[in-house]
């Protein structure tokens, strides 16, 4: 027993010591940035799926507090996830790396709410901002700058009504952004539009009243859609193909589940996958979020079970939330409807 206690204590001490030692070392911000941020924001912060972070005007107005809060809260429904697992030291190290792209000192703002006229701010917003940021501040469609897919603008206008953004930004930073504009994007300083500092206060007052995006509510759904078929295997397969092509999908491949994993001729032909695609729909979906290709092409598996013949496929609506991109929801809902129709028609 004593040996066990000694072993327990030694292991505990080792774990505590190694953790403390790890905390004593200053985190490597560059490595953390490359690991956590570069996939979306680019190796050098030039942008990608995510907005560019290395724009001088952005770094001149973005406070460390804003960046830290953004890491903590993310942007619900707008691709950027929250990073709750990063320690404060790691978050600060990433922020130091981002700061390294500019000579501008980090601004510090107070958290005082500006007292503008929100009603007037709404009029100004509609006139000058809504074309890019949307009527309700919901932001531009799609993801970030050019990313495999052609884009109409060099940057997606951020969603100003996003709860993550609203929690992260101070009134003073909003005002500083309005007054400075952002070179490299379509956003010009509001003074170039003939507006004044007082107008900025009114705009900020309205930005704080923007209604939040209601699409962010999520429900937990089954990850699959399954329907049993009253028909035999071959007849169900025939029905499936007819239902697929009737909806203007192209059948691009048919194979067994184990194809490529067992010798030719030894496959289990009672687990059969039909792959299909509508390239115009695919192009549309990829334009909204190129990551969605992970769950493409479309496929339905026909399989024989103890209970009979069934058709089974992924449930796109249950996968939509993985991408944290509310723009994708309608495409996933559409795909869910199409999958359901195909399975229903094949098994009716």
């Amino acid at each position, binding site marked *: 027993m004593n040996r066990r206690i000694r072993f327990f204590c030694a292991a505990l001490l080792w774990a505590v010591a190694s953790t403390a030692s790890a905390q004593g070392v200053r985190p490597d911000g560059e490595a953390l940035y490359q690991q956590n941020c570069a996939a979306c924001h680019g190796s050098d912060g030039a942008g990608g799926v995510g907005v560019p972070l290395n724009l001088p005007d952005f770094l001149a107005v973005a406070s460390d507090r804003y960046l830290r809060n953004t890491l903590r809260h993310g942007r619900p429904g707008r691709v950027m996830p929250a990073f709750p697992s990063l320690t404060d030291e790691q978050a600060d190290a990433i922020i130091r790396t981002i700061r390294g792209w500019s000579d501008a000192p980090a601004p510090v703002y107070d958290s005082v709410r500006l007292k503008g006229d929100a009603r007037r701010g709404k009029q100004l917003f509609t006139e000058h901002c809504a074309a890019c940021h949307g009527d309700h501040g919901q932001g531009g469609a799609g993801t970030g700058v050019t990313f495999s897919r052609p884009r109409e603008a060099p940057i997606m206008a951020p969603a100003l009504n996003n709860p993550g953004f609203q929690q992260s930004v101070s009134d003073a930073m909003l005002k500083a952004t309005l007054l400075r504009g952002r070179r490299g994007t379509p956003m010009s300083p509001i003074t170039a539009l003939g507006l004044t500092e007082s107008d900025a206060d009114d705009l900020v007052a309205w930005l704080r009243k923007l209604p939040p995006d209601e699409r962010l509510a999520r429900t937990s759904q089954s990850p699959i859609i399954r329907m049993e078929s009253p028909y035999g295997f071959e007849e169900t397969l025939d029905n499936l193909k007819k239902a697929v092509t009737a909806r203007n999908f192209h059948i691009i491949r048919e194979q067994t589940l*184990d194809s490529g994993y067992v010798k030719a001729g030894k496959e289990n032909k009672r687990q059969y996958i039909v792959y299909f695609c509508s390239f115009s729909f695919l192009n549309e979906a990829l334009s909204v979020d190129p990551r969605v290709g992970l769950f493409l092409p479309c496929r339905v598996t026909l399989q024989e079970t103890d209970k009979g013949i069934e058709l089974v496929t992924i449930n796109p609506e249950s996968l939509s939330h993985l991408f944290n991109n509310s723009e994708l929801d309608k495409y996933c809902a559409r795909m869910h409807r199409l999958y359901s129709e195909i399975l229903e028609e094949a098994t009716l």
Partner: protein
Amino acid sequence: MRSWRIWLAAILLILTTSAIAQDLYMVRSGMAFPEAMVALQKAIREQGYTLSRVQRVDLGLKSFGFKTDRYRVVFFGKPAEIEQLGNKYRDLVPYLPLKIAIFAEGDETLLLASSFHHLRPFFKQPALGKQFDTWEKDIQRILEQVRLAD
């Protein structure tokens, strides 16, 4: 006697891990698409998986007149796992085999895979939970190997 071992394992786990559930794994490789694709296939094989096919998404899009950069989906698995899990867990079949999307972004390449976090509430069998753990670790190793490859 058994309980203190469980406690020890729990304490060590809490102290030595900081990982949290992630829905997607995404990494950027500084390599151009062809080199990154080679590195991905090598990493998949080195983790003990068989690559079954590569879906050339970009070719399909181009053949229908759409503009796109290089975009592929790589399918892989272990033959025994595909056979056993495909037979035992029929509801899991739509998520088999495993896959990684790989696509060009200018001179660099992005790689993306899904974790199994979203499937866990629906597949509560302990054996499957362990299988998800293994796949998640392997996928992260594969992606990390490509990210760090020259």
